[in-house]
């Protein structure tokens, strides 16, 4: 069984510890995982802007890179959804390599729960945690039930994993799955609305008594973290892989130099 790690571009460049934590988490589960070099981006920024011609070669590169692996694991619901649900436009119908990568790419929590069937990890994480449901993981991959739908009991994969940590406690925001306002290029195209959405989310998590917002997508957290640091709000953000590895809470300092 060959398993490849698919690391989104912004995680590679700005949040390497998220990828390291993902790698360590998988290795701890006994998965022999490799990181194929030469990875860049899945093409989502181009695709979501409408630039199909620019997205196509990037999507095809990714498929070439991963086509020879049995399984591909990605610590992002959004990039996984891009491959699983939005790649068809960039390939010939029935393209075998594309079909293979599409059906063998998993978001991290989904992989841990559905493929590996991991039980409680027991890692200590004595903090008050609130979950931010990243939209693409929620409504494209259905990693949990969205608040709009009435599909009966659908397990929340991220929460299920987090509940297996020792000492974890919960803070519950009033709006369980409202978008944070990142939205890729939306964050700059519609900067005013994006920022307003982010601030509202942060206020909700803060009022719930959260110490740390946890999400499956670092891109949402990059946006929220940017707002948190600018305003000096006493709240941290962590990717679920970092939490599952029991990483310490980041310090509340503004890391940007001035």
């Amino acid at each position, binding site marked *: 069984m060959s398993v490849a790690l698919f*690391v989104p571009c*912004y*995680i*590679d*460049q*700005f949040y*390497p510890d998220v990828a*390291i934590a993902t790698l360590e988490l998988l290795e701890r589960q006994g998965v022999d995982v490799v*990181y194929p*070099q030469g*990875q*860049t*981006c899945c*093409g989502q*920024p*181009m*695709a*979501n*802007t*409408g*630039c*199909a011609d*620019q*997205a196509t*070669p*990037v999507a095809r*590169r990714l498929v070439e890179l991963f086509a020879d692996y049995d399984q591909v694991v990605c610590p992002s619901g959004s990039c996984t959804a891009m491959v699983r649900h939005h790649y068809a*436009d960039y390939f010939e119908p029935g393209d075998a390599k594309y079909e293979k990568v599409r059906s063998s790419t998993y978001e991290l929590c989904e992989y841990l729960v559905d493929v590996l069937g991991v039980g409680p990890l027991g890692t200590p994480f004595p903090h008050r945690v609130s979950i931010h449901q990243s*939209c*693409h993981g*929620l*409504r494209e991959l259905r990693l949990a039930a*969205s608040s*709009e*739908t*009435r599909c009966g009991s659908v397990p929340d994969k991220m929460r299920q994993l987090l509940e297996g940590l020792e000492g974890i406690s919960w803070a519950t925001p009033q709006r369980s*799955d*409202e*978008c944070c*306002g990142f*939205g890729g*290029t*939306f964050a700059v195209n*519609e*900067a*005013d*609305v994006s*920022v*307003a959405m*982010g601030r*509202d989310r942060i206020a909700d998590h803060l009022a719930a008594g959260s110490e740390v917002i946890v999400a499956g997508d670092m891109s949402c957290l990059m*946006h929220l*973290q*940017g*707002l948190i640091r*600018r305003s000096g709000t006493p709240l941290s953000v962590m990717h679920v892989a970092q939490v599952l590895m029991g990483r310490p809470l980041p310090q509340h300092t*503004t*890391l*940007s130099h*001035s």
Partner: protein
Amino acid sequence: MSASSPLPVISPPRSTGAHAGPSRSAAAPLAHAAQPVVHDHPAMARDFVANVQRMHWHDGALWFVRNKRDAQASSIPEWEYLRQVASQIKTSAIARSAELLEQFEQNAQRLGAVVHWASDAQEHNRIVYEILRRHDVHRLVKSKSMLTEECHLNGFLEERGIEVVDTDLGERIVQLRRETPSHIVLPAIHLKKEEVGETFHEHLGTDEGASDPQYLTEAARQHLRGKFLRAEAGLTGVNFAIAETGGIVICTNEGNADLGTALPPVHIASMGLEKIIPKLEDLGVFTRLLARSATGQPITTYTSHFHGPRDAASELHIIIVDNGRTELRQSETFRAALGCIRCGACMNTCPVFRRSGGHSYGATVPGPIGSVLNPSSDSVRHKSLPYACSLCGSCTDVCPVKIPLHHQLLAWRKEFGRRGLLSIDKTLPMRAASLLFRRPRLYRAVGRLARAAMRSLPRALFVNRFNLWSRDRELPAPPEESFSQWYSRSRK
């Protein structure tokens, strides 16, 4: 449907001067004619978002409605099944629309209605005017009809000397203010009750400073009663037209459609051709979904069935309007949007709509469904709308007829790309990014340099008013090593 309540109501700040550019035009009185050719959603949303208190009020009011909808959806165990069935009925009705519309026409005629066909807004307005002229009508009362908003009927008739009174309370409020509705179900949701009080004081003579909802509603009721009694014709929208019976169904909360059609001898019902459903038994699926999705009520207060004219002395005219719908029907990608039952649930749930207000969309139908429909009639004018969306997908999950709204918004972006409609500030960065992402060594080198620059060069180079990311947000702290550098160093 008409479920408008004037309260709680909020409006975009009516600041004058500060943003007097073309982007302000949506908030200007009856501004469609003065709007720029290319409409820019973020610019038109700016003032609304900047007034944080008001924006939060608007957001809270609509979120309250969304919560009521959730509670109602939970009350029906087969909710998701109902949505699925509704979607299937609509899909089938759209596919068979030609046959069903003819069947409807025959059955409606058999019941004594006169059926007219209008290929576009102009033809619709001409038909309405002809009917009114033939009956020497000078005073028309209207109940809620987004189609007549789409056709700009009021202005057309007023220019020809006909008094048009919108009788839905929310619509009457915006009509008195010479504004357009900001929401298809809650037309005055952008207004505060104090502003409604001012408007009523000015137009209806209510006490100055009075803002008690009950007092204002009673004043509107008395005012409208006079209009109903003097009206010579009544115009309504249509929520559902049933092919097998030839009947039409109109859903309101205020009973204004009933009063407006029960008194005058002429009833004109304007319907988009997508309102057709095959059978009476299909109706129950939609009436169960409509009000629950729209306002979180189990059903609208009035669900009125019309089968031909009221009596031998009355006339019922049904105008079936295309106005771009057949063209939309040709599109594999966007066809499903014709299934929309105009419940407004996508607006209530949309985090962008709640924070930018309906007028920022600069179109009759705002919000997610509006952003799908409007580009089909004018893709240049409305090309910013599919980008007024974070692709969160909440609209898709809330839609009672399962229109894949956020995927259609994404599809519009791709369509703009194919048609060469994307501006250079969108295409150029994506060209650059694509070039970079095709060259892994270059990507790594640029990443390394950029991170080093962010660490060592003055902050002002990255955090300034030209950088829309860092205007309100810190940039991520750049690490010395990327993951791929770390991996090469530690795992090889």
